[in-house]
């Protein structure tokens, strides 16, 4: 029985994975090939099916010569780093807070999940409403503490930070949820052992909680970073890339190139580059996650 068990389990993992692989392949193969094809041609959106001259790597070269490309890259990096790091810190803090047993913890948790439930479009419109110079509630609140009215989305310097704040508001609950669920699945044994040993709160946190949570935290960071990189809906609604080019992040830039300039080939080349860039940047993070899986066993 042992032998057949091992023999069966050799293919077993592949069997489990196969439906997923099949599904994903079917859906993503065509877009990938189509995308690669478009990226090496000069394609105008309204002449989609006719007129697709092959231009080799010209799209990619133009991209690297375009200062707007680097502007978008720069803005996006700022966006991703700011949102993910702050969401992680606040989310972790909240998760630890909610992990304690207190009355109404369940209700509070559900309540705190609400921002994440809102459609990005609604969040964008809602914050636009609150940031409004004339009747936005924030102006009123600023007034209460004696600060004069401020221009948020209309200011070149404050537009991106305003969007960052709205994003943090919306997605911190995501971090909180993932980490909280992780905290709840942690085995009690190491904690009880530490308590018997008389270890203090912060030490327990640093030496036991964090290492155990590491894969969960890293996964949450990875997922959030990927999504933050692709942020589109909120920016489309709140500023459409303005004022000037202050919030023309990557997704917005690609969108404009595709649907305003109609340069679909160029836009696809950029999208592919973005895909490549993200996967390269994410690789060390993913490696980290993999290795922390391997060292699990406590």
């Amino acid at each position, binding site marked *: 029985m042992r032998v057949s068990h091992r023999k069966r*389990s050799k293919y*077993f*993992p592949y069997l489990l*994975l196969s*439906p*997923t692989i099949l*599904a*994903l392949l079917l*859906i993503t193969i065509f*877009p990938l090939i*189509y995308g690669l094809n*478009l990226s090496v041609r000069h394609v105008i959106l309204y002449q989609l099916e006719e007129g697709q001259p092959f231009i080799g790597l010209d799209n990619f070269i133009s991209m690297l010569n375009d200062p707007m490309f680097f502007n978008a890259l720069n803005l996006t990096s700022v966006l991703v780093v700011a949102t993910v790091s702050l969401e992680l810190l606040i989310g972790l803090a909240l998760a630890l*807070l909610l992990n*304690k047993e*207190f009355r109404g*913890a369940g209700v*509070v948790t*559900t309540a*705190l*999940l*609400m921002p994440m*439930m*809102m*459609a*990005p*479009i*609604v969040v964008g*419109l*809602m914050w636009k*409403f609150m940031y409004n110079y004339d*009747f936005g509630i924030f102006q009123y609140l600023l007034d209460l503490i004696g600060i004069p009215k401020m221009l948020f989305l209309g200011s070149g310097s404050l537009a991106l930070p305003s969007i960052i704040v709205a994003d943090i508001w919306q997605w*911190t609950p995501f971090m909180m*949820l*993932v980490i909280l*669920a992780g905290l*709840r*699945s942690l*085995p*009690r044994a190491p904690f*009880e052992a530490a308590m018997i040993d008389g270890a203090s709160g912060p030490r327990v946190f640093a030496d036991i909680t964090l290492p155990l949570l590491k*894969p969960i935290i890293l996964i949450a960071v990875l*997922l959030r970073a*990927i999504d933050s990189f692709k942020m*589109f*809906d909120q920016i489309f609604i709140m500023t459409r890339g303005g004022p000037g080019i202050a919030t023309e992040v990557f*997704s917005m830039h*690609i969108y404009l190139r*595709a649907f305003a300039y109609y340069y679909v080939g160029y*836009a696809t080349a950029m*999208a592919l580059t*973005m*895909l490549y860039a*993200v*996967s390269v940047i*994410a690789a060390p993070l*993913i490696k980290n996650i*993999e290795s922390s899986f391997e060292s*699990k*066993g*406590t």
Partner: protein
Amino acid sequence: MAPNAKIGRAFKKGALTLCVTVALVVFLFPIFWMVSTSLKTADQAISNPPVWIFSPTFKNYEDIWAKGLLLPLYNSLVIAASSTILAIALGSLSAYSLARFKFYGSKFTAYWIISTRMAPAIAFVLPIYLMMRNLGLLDTQVSMIIAHTTFNLPLAIWILRGYFAEIPVDMEEAAMMDGCSRMGALFRIVLPVCVSGVVAAAVICFVFSWNEFMYALVLTGVDAKTLPLLVAGVQTQRRIMWGEMTAMGTLVIVPAFIITALLRKHLLRGLAFGAVKG
């Protein structure tokens, strides 16, 4: 108990309450503001200074109802629920496989799975539109379910994988020595123990699908229209109908909130068995 310890405990409790209150205010205020604005008239909504006390009116909701709320609501529900179920079902199998077994290509497969999420939606929109057109699936729920599952599946796999890996192997080993099959071990041991993780993943997938805009715009028309499109329709050229927007925003959040509230118990149950806790 020593008086110092008592004060210490009270202080801790006070600090806890303070933090929770601050968090609640920060995260709930915009939602409160949205809901209250939805009950105001157009004038009150944009008045400065803002109106705190007023007599509520449901006109905004009536207007939306007149615009046709039922169908998008129904579509959104079906699409989100279906893609979530698919993602979790397929995803748990795959996540288990990746979490438990070290087989050739496992690392690469995991990497490839998450990389499908890395491309911006724009890159996918045109080809998927063409695919669905060729299959005759434009403006159907099916096309949306397929499109949504493609981004929910990698998400579910990676989240579930993290939780599955937390479970020590010997639990399943023990069960299998008792005569349980691998799959049995997955269903009877791993999933129940990871309930909070599974529910978390499900909630996240549902929410993503519920709120998705880009594919909805391109792949649907009249039949399969979803709620986010209804919301986007609020930005008419003349002016942003803040009243209708907030009302729609409120309505969109309600089902998601209900589902979360219902699943709350599972979310926080954690490990109720005591077994792994030693």
